[in-house]
């Protein structure tokens, strides 16, 4: 209780709004994901409508879950974690609010433009040039806020999570600016669509720049800030410090250096130089070391507290999240081995791998963090631990369905494409290999439905928690509720 006096009065307004953005964009993005999963099983669901067709919904799915859901979660945690580890109340609230408004505006505009078919075609960087400019402004408002917080901080030494947030900001700035370089054609001729542009790079060069971006979008949006989240919330939830400072240091700098070399594994046996492919493969394998450094460090933070996993659903989400990080960062390098990639590339095994990372690692970590933050921000109690517990098992089952079906589907199709008969002729038509996929696609859709069901349980649980906050405070008496919450 005596600590309560020294804790500054934190400003959670922006963190709360980003938390709600996370829930909304997550629900939308994952629903679109399930829709396109079902469209592969039942093609008539495309309904002959452009804005309902797989081809236009697929970029909407990836953009809304990667940039809508994940980044909103990253920003929500930033506005919560930064105040606490830097020991300072949120500075520049106007900049933070501008950041929030721009972010949500961009995602809404992105949804519209993607459905309308305005796309650069570059994976995870589909937005048209004018939206790219808005994204850069939004990103810079975040950068201003980061460095303003760092400048105003009362705690001199920067905690590990802060290193990762700063790395996310710097790396994504560099990658997005260079990969987005394009000439808007309207300014050259004053004819045609004003949103149309031509890429600055052509062919093989364009591919190399794009996958340098694409691979590291995975690194610095879906990995680095999620590690930042884990490094704050796992020790908090376990109520003990990070296992090893030295391990966090080496795995951070290792990850920073190695990740940027691994992009070529997206272009194995393509027309990029052979030495670049080999280098990309080697660095992908080396990447296991810093990735597992972080994973081991995060898991061992539970040392002596493992029994907490039996009873605490929030710890379950965070720890299984980091465990999936370990799975995904072993699976990825295996797929980057050239001979394995020859079978795996262009198949659903890659899709399965991505979802191990995004469902298991990214979503679980963000869900765990939100479950931890919401009662503290709204000064209340979680509505139902039991619901969270059931959600955990339903979603875990969903992920198992997802990756097991995609694993079998991918290896089956990759193998069928290369199977020959006794005369050395191809044994299967392309269509044969599609027909075999359908049951696995159905199983994947079952997995996706389970995961989405769990997400709606999460949504409901948080909704009830927030709605019950006023009643809880009235019942418990604002003072005692406040001290019991801040003490944890």
């Amino acid at each position, binding site marked *: 209780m005596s600590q309560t006096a020294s804790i500054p009065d934190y400003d959670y307004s922006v963190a709360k709004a980003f938390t709600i953005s996370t829930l909304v964009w997550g629900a939308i993005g994952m629903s679109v994901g399930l829709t396109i999963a079902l*469209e592969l099983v039942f*093609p008539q669901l*495309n309904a*002959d409508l*452009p804005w309902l*067709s*797989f*081809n*236009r919904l697929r970029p909407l799915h990836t953009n809304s879950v990667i940039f809508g859901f994940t980044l909103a979660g990253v920003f929500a945690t930033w506005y919560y974690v930064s105040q606490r580890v830097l020991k300072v109340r949120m500075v520049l609230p106007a900049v933070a609010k501008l950041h929030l408004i721009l972010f949500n505006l961009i995602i809404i505009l992105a949804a519209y433009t993607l459905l309308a078919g305005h*796309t*650069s*075609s570059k*994976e995870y960087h589909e937005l048209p040039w004018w939206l790219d400019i808005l994204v850069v402004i939004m990103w810079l408002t975040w950068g201003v806020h980061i*460095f303003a917080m760092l*400048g105003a901080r009362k705690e001199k*030494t*920067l905690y590990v999570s802060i290193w990762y947030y*700063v*790395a996310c900001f*710097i*790396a994504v700035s*560099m990658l997005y600016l260079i990969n987005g370089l394009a*000439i808007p054609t309207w300014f*050259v*001729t004053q*004819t*045609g*669509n004003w949103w149309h542009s*031509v*890429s*600055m*790079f*052509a*062919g*093989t*060069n*364009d591919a190399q*720049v*794009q996958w*340098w971006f694409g691979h590291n979008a995975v690194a610095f949006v879906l990995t680095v800030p999620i590690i930042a989240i884990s490094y704050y919330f796992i020790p908090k939830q376990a109520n003990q410090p990070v296992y090893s400072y030295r391990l966090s240091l080496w795995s951070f700098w290792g990850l920073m*250096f190695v990740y*940027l070399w*691994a*992009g*070529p594994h*997206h*272009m194995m*046996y*393509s*027309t990029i130089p052979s030495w670049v492919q080999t*280098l*990309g493969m080697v660095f992908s394998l080396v990447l296991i070391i810093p990735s597992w450094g972080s994973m081991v460090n995060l898991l061992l933070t539970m040392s002596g507290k493992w029994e907490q996993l039996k009873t605490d659903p929030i710890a379950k989400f965070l720890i299984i999240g980091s465990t999936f990080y370990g799975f995904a960062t072993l699976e990825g390098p295996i797929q980057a081995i050239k001979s394995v990639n020859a079978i795996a590339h*262009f*198949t*659903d095994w*890659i899709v399965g791998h991505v979802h191990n990372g995004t469902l298991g690692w990214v979503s679980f970590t963000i869900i765990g963090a939100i479950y931890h933050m919401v009662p503290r921000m709204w000064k209340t109690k979680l509505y139902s631990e039991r619901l969270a517990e059931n959600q955990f098992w339903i979603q875990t089952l969903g992920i198992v369905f997802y990756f097991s079906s995609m694993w079998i589907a991918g290896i089956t199709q990759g193998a069928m*494409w290369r199977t020959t008969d006794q005369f050395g002729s*191809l044994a299967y038509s392309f*269509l044969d290999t*599609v027909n075999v996929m359908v049951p696995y696609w159905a199983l994947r859709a079952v997995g996706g439905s389970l995961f989405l069901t769990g997400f709606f349980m999460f949504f409901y649980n948080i909704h009830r928690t927030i709605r019950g906050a006023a009643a809880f405070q009235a019942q418990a008496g604002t003072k005692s509720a406040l001290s019991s919450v801040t003490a944890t």
Partner: protein
Amino acid sequence: MFEFIERNSLLLGLCIFITITIGGMVEIIPSFTQNSRPIEGLKPYSTLEMAGRQIYIRESCNACHSQLIRPFKSETDRYGAYSLSGEYAYDRPFLWGSRRTGPDLHRIGNYRTTDWHEAHFINARNVSPGSVMPNFPWFFEDNVDFGTVHAEIITVKTIFGVPYDQGDNPKSGSLKEIKAMGLVEAAEIVKDMKTQAIKDALAKGEVKDIVAMIAYLNRMK
């Protein structure tokens, strides 16, 4: 041992920036010039092909189709000669794709015809039982946007030096000239098509998206 970095946020940012730039520079820059050279005989996209390519991008066809034949017997048997870097020299953006939910299309022009594509875009299951491709009825309704085609041709010609108007390469020109060339190309395609509405539209001087799409796919050889 690096505590001084962890206490100075600008130094931390600088160290991160230097560490992350190395990999990309080593891997991308050395082969940049070599990779931009076109293969001998490569022609820039003609008016109608360019229009088709813009539709291909608008519909994110690359979400399900690759344009990259890898150097394996199983791929060259199925799709034709493996892809060469110089073939992509005028591809802005590149369209290699990352998942073959449908087959590779880099040499589709060698083994599919105009009327096959026409039937396939109406309903893929007409010609490929069990296909999961969506139908594209709006290709038969919407007109080609020659304004954007003109803008892109002039942009790549003036800014990136794509050799339009050289030798027997396709011509650039004013918007009016671009549209006139598009109509001539469209007539070649439409004579092999069966849909009467497309023929009627062409007679009125309108080119539907389907015609441009087929022109682009027929070029892919």
